């Protein structure tokens, strides 16, 4: 029962996330690129999207941080690492380049799949391949 409820919560969470992206215009790569294009006529909408999300998220994580288990009595999986290493910085720098090329990041890529956009699907597949390449390199190293 608890398991089932947690799956429903995850589905709802994904659904609300997707609605939020669509409403905010963030499922539209052209709008994301209009934010990243600071030297042209600039569309700052993305700042408010992040601001709105962080305002709610901040309260949620304050509550979550005081609990050892979730409302469904599942363990709280909050990242604990505070190490700023090369891997983090280089990974983020690389991710930003790809984000700037197409205006698509991972969550909107899945929303684009649902819209049936062929270009979105092509991006999504190569994004998953990119993730797979990293996994492959990492597993060979071990």
């Amino acid at each position, binding site marked *: 029962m608890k398991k089932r*409820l*947690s799956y429903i919560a*995850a589905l*709802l*969470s*994904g*659904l609300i*996330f997707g609605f*939020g*992206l*669509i409403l905010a*215009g963030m499922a539209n790569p052209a709008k994301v*690129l*209009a934010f*990243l*294009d*600071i030297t042209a*006529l*600039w*569309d700052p*909408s993305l700042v*408010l999207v*992040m601001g709105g*999300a*962080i305002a709610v*998220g901040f309260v949620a994580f304050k509550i979550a941080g005081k609990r050892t*288990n*979730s409302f469904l009595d599942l*363990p*709280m999986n*909050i*990242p604990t*690492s505070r190490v*700023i290493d090369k891997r*983090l910085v280089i*990974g*983020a*720098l690389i*991710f*930003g*380049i790809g*984000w*700037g*090329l*197409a*205006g*698509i*990041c*991972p969550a909107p*890529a*899945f929303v684009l799949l649902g*819209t049936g956009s062929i270009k979105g699907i*092509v*991006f999504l597949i*190569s*994004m998953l*391949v*990119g*993730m797979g390449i*990293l996994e492959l390199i990492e597993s060979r190293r071990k």
Partner: protein
Amino acid sequence: MTIDWNHFTPWSALAGGGLIGISVALLILVNGRVAGITGIIGGLFKPIKSDIAWRIAFTLGLVIAPILWLLLAPLPEITIDAGYKLLIVAGLIVGYGARLGSGCTSGHGVCGISRLSPRSIIATLAFMGTGFLTVFIVRHLLGWL
């Protein structure tokens, strides 16, 4: 820097952001999980049996969101200017980089900053920086798009 008042949508941006925040709150408070898409998908590459279904459920939610939206209202404009070759290259880079840096706009940009995580603040500054720079190079130096 000049604000494009014709395309700036402050209210829908704030409201959409609020919804994303509610989604994040739901997942952490009910399931004890962080709504970082890169991490959620990444966990499916090395699947642990009891840890698969919620990841698929969340991702499915993202995919069916535009389909349910369409039942109520037409979808807002979605424009992808990049051609197929550029999309393939961009996708590979996004997937590789996000996984290497342990997060993307959702995991670091929204959830991480909500937790005031120093790692996520640095990561967000880093990917915003290269994002701005890439668009500047592609649009204004190379004139591709």
